[in-house]
């Protein structure tokens, strides 16, 4: 009985850093540590670590990597087109999504294009972008943009369309004009879908960033990847992939936090 009681007490939400001690978090942390342990033992059991490093080797390599200017330069070169592509995809996706959601004419005009581009794997467009725009900053921003744009657009358009007819009718019955209706009904009504679109779109933008680095003649993180691969420096290669994963996780965590903040009215659920 007392064990059960304590278990329940621990499940209640806590403030600040203490939430890290919640059982669900501890289980997650244990799973991660377990994964690292399996990695370490498997790495040690191999005859050579040329192709697969141990976890320890990866960590050592990561610490070295973080101290080289090359690493930070590479990220800088990768992140600038990422930020351009990501921000423009978020902005354009929301704007075009709102237009498509609000206007039946625009919806019908764009439907074939949206369906076509949505059915196409975006990676296929990378060679097209290279032929059209080369491999410069514009081309690389465009790849990131293309990866994220449709996700944001589709989610936003769906969010606008699924605002209940009853709410629109209610606003109309009180004589609310179109501009106020947009600000007070359409935007907050579509906000959950917009935020979900932005979060998923951010994940897609990170994918686009990596694809662009690997498929285009690379200058940033991609060039480091090629260099480590050529040298069979597998600890450094794994360390680099690890930093990309951390970058993706951080980007998604930031977006999730923004989402919770924007949708605070929904309460704790």
């Amino acid at each position, binding site marked *: 009985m007392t064990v059960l009681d304590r278990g329940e007490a621990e499940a209640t939400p806590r403030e600040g850093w203490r939430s890290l001690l919640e059982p669900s978090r501890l289980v997650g942390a244990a799973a991660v540590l377990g994964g690292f342990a399996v990695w370490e033992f498997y790495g040690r059991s191999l005859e050579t670590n040329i192709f697969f490093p141990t976890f320890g080797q990866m960590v050592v390599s990561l610490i070295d990597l973080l101290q080289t200017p090359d690493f930070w330069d590479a990220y800088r070169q990768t992140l600038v087109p990422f930020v351009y592509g990501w921000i423009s995809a978020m902005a354009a996706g929301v704007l075009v999504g709102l237009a498509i959601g609000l206007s039946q004419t625009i919806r019908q005009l764009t439907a074939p294009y949206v369906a076509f581009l949505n059915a196409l794997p975006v990676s296929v467009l990378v060679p097209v972008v290279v032929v059209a725009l080369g491999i410069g900053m514009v081309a690389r921003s465009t790849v990131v943009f293309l990866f994220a744009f449709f996700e944001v657009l589709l989610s936003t358009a769906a969010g606008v369309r699924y605002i*209940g007819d009853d709410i629109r009718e209610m606003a*109309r019955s*009180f*004589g609310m004009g179109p501009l106020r209706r947009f600000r007070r009904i359409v935007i*907050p009504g579509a906000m959950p879908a917009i935020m979900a679109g932005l979060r998923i779109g951010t994940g897609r933008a990170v994918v686009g960033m990596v694809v662009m680095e690997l498929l285009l003649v690379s200058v940033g993180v991609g060039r480091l990847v090629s260099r480590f691969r050529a040298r069979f420096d597998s600890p450094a290669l794994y360390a680099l992939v690890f930093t990309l994963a951390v970058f993706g996780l951080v980007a998604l965590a930031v977006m999730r936090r923004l989402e919770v903040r924007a*949708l605070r009215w929904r309460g704790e659920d």
Partner: protein
Amino acid sequence: MIEVKSVSKVFRRNGVTLEALRDVTFEVGTGQFTSIIGPSGCGKTTLLKMMAGLIAPTSGAIEIEGEKVTGSGPDRALVFQHFVLLPWADVLTNAAFGLEARGVAKSKREQIARAQLEQVGLGGFEAHYPHELSGGMQQRVGIARALAVDPDTLLMDEPFGSLDAITRQVMQRDLLKLWQETAHKTTVFVTHSMDEAALLSDYVVIMDTRPGRVAQIIEVPFPRPRSETLTESSEYREFTARLSHQLEKMQRVDMERETTQEAEGSSDG
């Protein structure tokens, strides 16, 4: 005065025509409470939305104080069956919504909304969100929102239809008190419930189905101000029994018509 002048409505959807209303004519006197009652599908909600200016009649017209209804107007306010509150806005913002739609300044509209919330018994709930309230409380916000714009005409579309029996009874009695204590607003009240109509109304318009039309208009014989103990009197019970009987008869005739039609339909095929 609201004059419904030989209003007809035909809906066409996917090639199927549905005659919702045929030649409906009646009047609602200024300062009177009139209920529209009838089996589902008799077009009573359609008729109410026409008075609100949300649906246009196919032929005929509705005139309010001699002026033809062509759209929503500040002289009317609707209360909806499913409340239709903005889930992302707190109670105060919801109650002030009608005023906001009309461009009333924030401090002014919140002051009015606060007073209305107080009047419907929701003082102290201003900062709550709709999902934190029971159905009855949500509808109180809906009523406060309608009263806040100080309409000449109050249009209520089965406002207690989605509440449980006890809540419903409390809401009926509170509405009776509120309506009698404040300036008698011209009210059109769509309902399924005989008891509700008899307690609240001056006149009951009974409608029949297929197509929706006025079957009978009955004056409710109980003097005002009425108290909630009215429901315990034998006169009240006799009156509601008579109304129920009439409605039941209509519903049975309608059902028989449907079965004959179906039988005819199947013999055709």
